[in-house]
């Protein structure tokens, strides 16, 4: 009987922990469900997350419209070197970065977002946010990002 009590103790503890965890999981579900319906900044459920078109640097160079380049790489990378005239969106693509883009943007300006490489998803995410939060429609992503620009510069020389 004594042996049974000593093995029950951890089981009782586990059950108590599981009950408490279940309660927390349920309580968290309530505001989450409300947010799914009412949060003004909720995301769409659609599987087809809008994919922002990508353009080659050679095409960007031929545009006649003014271009606003937006760099979403790290601080160190931007400070080390960036495409001339590019605006840095900030490491967290936060409020300050959005305000900076909104201030720099003029009607008719095309926005090109770039990050480090083709593996980088930050440019797509940033471009989606610029479209969604600033209402900018003419926003594209630089195909290949910074590495493609470096390669294009190397070929020009």
């Amino acid at each position, binding site marked *: 009987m004594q042996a049974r009590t000593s093995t029950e*103790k*951890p089981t009782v*503890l586990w059950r*108590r*922990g*599981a*009950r*408490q*965890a*279940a*309660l*927390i*999981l349920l*309580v*968290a*579900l309530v*505001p*989450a469900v409300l*947010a*799914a319906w009412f*949060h003004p*900044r*909720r*995301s*769409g*459920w*659609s*599987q087809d*997350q809008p994919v922002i078109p990508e353009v080659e640097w050679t095409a960007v160079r031929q545009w006649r419209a003014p271009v606003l380049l937006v760099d*979403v*790489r*790290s*601080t*160190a*990378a931007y400070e080390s070197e960036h495409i001339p005239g590019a605006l840095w969106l900030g*490491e*967290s*693509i*936060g409020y300050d970065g959005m305000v900076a883009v909104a201030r720099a943007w003029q009607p008719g300006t095309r926005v090109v977002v770039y*990050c*480090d*490489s083709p*593996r*980088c*998803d*930050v440019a797509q*995410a940033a471009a*989606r*946010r610029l479209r*969604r939060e600033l209402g900018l429609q003419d926003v594209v992503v630089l195909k290949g990002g910074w590495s493609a620009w470096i390669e294009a510069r190397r070929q020009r020389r």
Partner: protein
Amino acid sequence: MGWVGRIVLAAVFVCAGAAKALDPAAFADAIDSYRLLPHPAGVALALYLPWLEITGGLGVVWSRTRLGALSLLFLLCLMFGIAVASAWIRDLDIACGCFGGGAVGAAALRGSLLRSAALALLTGALLWAEETRCARPDSSAGSM
């Protein structure tokens, strides 16, 4: 000293959860960038996870939910660590998204990984202490 650790842990999780709960769309983008989940699952997680962090953080403070809250937060720390480590190994140039954004790049991911490991250690130590306290014959559930 245990209460200091619990307050720190609760503050970290409540702050992290609140930052993400304010902008679930941005957090969904951050989850998508890990390329681990389909988009609808990322959206659902972006809506739920911040509130789980907040309730879990608050649950640590209250003795009646502490054991369950610490267990959940420990699992969350492990989950965050695995997600960030996988992004780092795959050489993804993304932000952690842990506090609703964050720096981009491998160095930032390494920092996030270290933070996750530190939080997992703290949570694990508090969980172990709580289990030890609860297992004592004279333990009372109502203590702070």
